[in-house]
């Protein structure tokens, strides 16, 4: 039995990532964003497809985030909770509103920085390396640190290297972004898929009778 408070707390937080479902669903969303940029690159500038794509990015991001959350919830309810138990991480109302404000402020700040840098440099060739670096930092400093899982360090490192490589590849920006999001999504899905398969193999579902004996 562990007696270290922070060890126990980290183990509890790590449980969210134990089944790989989050990576699988998040990777799927990244893959869709990658396809969006690929479609943007391949469609001609005045076509209907381009107009539809231009007007649907916000919908894709917001709708995709909600769909991902819904999918994760469904999969965890069917696969994880009957096997290893249910945990509601929840957040207080205060934490949620301050968190949302902080996320919004960072998003606005980063967007403004991107526009200023774009005007200053005169091109967006650096955008893939910037995006890769941003994902890498988030994966390594937030998710890997909170969960204590090494696979997120690897995924973060992959994002940074891929972003840098694409920036120096000479490919059009949209195409580079399509590859960055698409390959990051595939790597995340692969990692999540392997983790999920191992999780399902190691944790057979409990019989109903066994669950009924609780308390």
């Amino acid at each position, binding site marked *: *039995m*562990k*007696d270290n*408070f922070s060890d*126990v*707390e980290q*183990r*509890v*937080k790590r*449980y969210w990532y134990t089944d790989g479902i989050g990576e699988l669903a998040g990777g799927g969303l990244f893959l869709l964003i990658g396809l969006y940029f690929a479609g943007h690159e391949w469609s001609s500038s005045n076509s209907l497809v381009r107009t539809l794509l231009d007007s649907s990015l916000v919908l894709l991001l917001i709708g995709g985030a909600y769909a991902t959350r819904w999918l994760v919830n469904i999969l965890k*309810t*069917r696969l994880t*909770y*009957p096997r*290893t*138990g*249910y*945990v*509601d*991480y*929840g*957040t207080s109302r205060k934490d949620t509103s301050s968190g949302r404000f902080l996320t919004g402020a960072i998003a606005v700040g980063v967007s403004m920085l991107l526009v200023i840098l774009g005007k200053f440099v005169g091109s967006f060739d650096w955008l893939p390396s910037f995006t890769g670096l941003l994902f890498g930092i988030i994966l390594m400093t937030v998710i890997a640190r909170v969960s204590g899982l090494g696979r997120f360090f690897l995924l973060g490192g992959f994002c940074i290297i891929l972003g840098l490589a694409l920036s120096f590849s000479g490919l059009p920006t949209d195409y580079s972004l399509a590859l960055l999001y698409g390959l990051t999504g595939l790597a995340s899905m692969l990692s999540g898929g392997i983790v999920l398969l191992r999780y399902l193999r190691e944790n057979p579902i*409990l019989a109903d009778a066994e*669950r*009924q*004996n*609780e*308390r």
Partner: protein
Amino acid sequence: MSDDLRIVTELDRLIHEPARLLIVTILSSVASADFLYLQRETGLTKGNLSAHLSKLEEAGYVQIEKTFKGKLPLTVCKLTTSGQKALKAYRQQLQSFMKMTG
């Protein structure tokens, strides 16, 4: 009696028991968790976990509710405000003791 020994005698015995301490520490990190998760994390048997939860519930430290997540029946446990305060006080007492003796 010396101050450091007095702190030990003043510790909340309900929380000081290792299995219950683990249960409340787990519950303090989340909004709620179900019986199966607590059983797996603590390594306790069903009967043992049930007995410890009953004691914590009687003391008003833990709230237990039978509910459903979709079609899945769950026994969900949640640390009450009183339980959070008790754990916080316990940790502070333990830290004071460690400072005095360390």
